[in-house]
């Protein structure tokens, strides 16, 4: 009896542990060479995500901005700021800034940004309210369950293409949202049964 209880407890503890933020790194902030604030650039300056992550519509990767992109503004704004010294060094030496990844899927997952954006999965669906994060953190657990939840029922997660980078929620009711999502799914023949096939994400 004691043995069964202990095994059950261990099982529950293990289950909780693998889904805990300790394991998934949800809500974690990584150390960065420059304390870049997405809140400042997105919410205060109103810069579209694609200004810096310019390959998100055409490639598997959203793209990290080259130092040249940072310097487009910072050659003039805060041009002598101590906090931006690593950016200026990077431009001068040609060595890229070493950013530490916050959102990452395992190497056996072949995630493609371009198709998600093209079909209307908003940035905020996976990355959370970037416009409220002075230091960026991983908003969602990024475990398989998180991906599968959406692949089984994409309709509530689809938006018109011109609203993909909008951080604020749409003013739609749940019913309107579902109606729109189902129309997109019909137009692009998106079948949730196929979306959960292994080879959709793994090769």
């Amino acid at each position, binding site marked *: 009896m004691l043995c069964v209880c202990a095994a059950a407890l261990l099982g529950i503890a293990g289950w909780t542990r693998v889904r805990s933020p300790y394991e998934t790194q949800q809500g974690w902030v990584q150390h960065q060479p420059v304390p870049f604030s997405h809140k400042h650039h997105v919410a205060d300056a109103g810069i579209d995500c694609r200004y810096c992550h310019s390959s998100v519509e055409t490639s598997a990767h959203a793209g990290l901005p080259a130092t040249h992109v940072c310097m487009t*503004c910072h050659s*003039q704004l805060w041009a002598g700021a101590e906090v931006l010294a690593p950016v200026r060094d990077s431009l001068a030496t040609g060595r890229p800034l*070493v950013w530490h990844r916050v959102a990452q899927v395992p190497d056996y997952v072949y995630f493609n940004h371009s198709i998600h954006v093209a079909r209307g999965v908003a940035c905020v669906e996976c990355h959370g309210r970037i416009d409220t994060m002075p230091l960026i953190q991983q908003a969602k657990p990024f475990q398989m369950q998180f991906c599968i939840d959406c692949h089984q029922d994409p309709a509530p997660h689809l938006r018109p293409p011109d609203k993909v980078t909008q951080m604020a929620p749409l003013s739609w009711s749940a019913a309107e949202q579902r109606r729109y999502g189902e129309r997109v799914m019909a137009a692009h023949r998106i079948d949730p049964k196929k979306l959960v096939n292994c080879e959709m994400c793994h090769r």
Partner: protein
Amino acid sequence: MKARLILLLLLGGCDQNMVQQPRYDEYERSPLSANGSSMIAPPDGVVAQDAVARAAQAQRPAMTPALLARGRERYGIYCAMCHGVDGRGDGIVPARGFPRPPSYMEPRLVAAPTAHFYDVITHGYGVMYAYADRVSPQDRWAIAAYIRALQKAGGADAR
């Protein structure tokens, strides 16, 4: 002994880390290259395989509503924060201290050929950096077309 050896070999296989596989992904660090990145710029003088297709893309497309719509969207992403939503040069970035860009309604820019805007996006102008790495040739024409629309809307007598 033999069985133990086999077990040891089998366990050796367990060490393979599937999450971080021994391959270079985009943006990963690499000790092999001078800039420390797995992404290496091609040497000078390299011609891309799709150079001909790209050159064809740089041709000015016909003016269509679709081109204008694309231009409007791209303008919103890459230009509006400096040049302003209406093209008068009062975007949020100049409001923070960046040198103010000229208004598109200036006679000099109204008289300029459309290719001038394409060139400025490609190569930059004054304190404006080049956008060739961010805006594709087709999108540059689309933005140039939208600037013409802004000039019309702003009351300038654009061609």
